[in-house]
């Protein structure tokens, strides 16, 4: 916090150090090392590492289970896929 009551933080934006206002993240606990979304000089949102990783995971397997099932069904082998067997990725 500086003398004028603005909650300022120094943020590394692609190598450039910028002062960013944390006033709109009053309800979040922001600590050094966090990643934030900045808009017009204000931090608007704290970026969630867990959600980013979850999303990446979803993207990696996008369409694979569906494609694998279609492939398996195409061979007429659907009865041989047991509940414990994960359809593997096709490459």
């Amino acid at each position, binding site marked *: 916090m500086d003398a*004028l*009551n*603005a909650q300022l933080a120094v943020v590394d934006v*692609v190598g450039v150090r910028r002062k960013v*206002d944390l*006033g*709109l*993240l*009053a*309800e979040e606990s922001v600590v050094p090392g966090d*990643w934030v*979304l900045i*808009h*017009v*000089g*204000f931090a*608007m*949102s704290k*970026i*969630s*590492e867990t*959600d*980013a990783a*979850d*999303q*990446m995971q*979803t*993207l*990696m397997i*996008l*369409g694979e289970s*569906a*494609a694998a099932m279609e492939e398996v069904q195409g061979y007429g082998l659907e009865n041989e896929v047991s509940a414990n067997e994960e359809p593997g990725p096709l490459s």
Partner: protein
Amino acid sequence: MKYVDEFRAPELIGKAGEEIRRLADSKRHYRIMEVCGGHTHAIYRFGLKDLLPENVELIHGPGCPVCVLPMGRIDDGLSLTAKPEFIFAAFGDMMRVPGTHGSPLEYKARGMDVRIVYSPADALKLARLNPKKHVVFFAIGFETTAPSTALTIIRAKSEGLTNFSVFCNHVTIIPAIRAILDSPDMRLDGFVGPGHVSTVIGCRPYEWIAQEEGKPVVVSGFEPLDILQSIVMLLGQLRNGESKVENQYKRVVPWEGNRAALRAMAEVFELRPYFEWRGLGFISQSALKIRSAYGEWDSEQRFTVPGVRVTDPKAAQCGEVLKGVLKPSQCKLFGRECTPEQPVGALMVSSEGSCAAHYNYSQHKPVTIASAAAV
């Protein structure tokens, strides 16, 4: 950069494109609107259209604040500061927007004190540094930007800094989406919802679109994989006959939005009964004005504003393009009289405007006199 590079991974982009082709029913034609100008820009910049099958069409929505601002408001703002004791402060993307007698930059060339600011807080700083002058901050933007303006006004009041006021042009996204859905010439299948607006308002305000209008909404990030994944999610819902609000941009957008930002907005702003949108006309309760408790920091309450109304140039078809009825290149002026260097309409000014994005990134530029001469 973290949270950017991984969402541009070419192999995953290819995979997402395949999934879109798998989900899109070849007997159907899909019309999906990306509401936000940031998405429009990303779609053109990364050439995402080329990854989509022909029957998945992206319609560019009204979410570019510079583009929807009527010219009269620019004239009003500039007329306010036409005296030497004023400073006109605005974001960089406002500087080339044409008013009736020129853009803010042209006014600057004629001697007006015009400053580009990166943040409303910078405009407040200008007021502190220039106590003998009055700084008018030309505020523009959707709910993404409005909380920053609100907090700046709260700070001006708490500091007792009275040589600063805001000419408020903040608008809200939901009434614009409603106006588009009410438009008789518009048929849409779903929405790529605005990511950054939703960091503030959250995802609940879109539920009526899913429930009452039966159209799926997926709040989306801005990287190529974000947008493609959102299209996958929309097509998945359409294939299953569903319409719900989903959040693709969970890493940034909390479902409930940002309560501190909403509180700052509610403290400073109230809804205007109506506001004019370029291309969409008057929309009720679609814009914000400053509450009388903060009237001293409202340029419109403090000074006399002429209230100029200007009809757009007839030949420019900004309205039709803004509503997605016409594609940018179908406008008679596109790439000829209207270019990013010499814009006639606002859609050609902002980098988020669909005409500027189409002009800058599309491979199918029309032949202009200049380019023909160069060949």
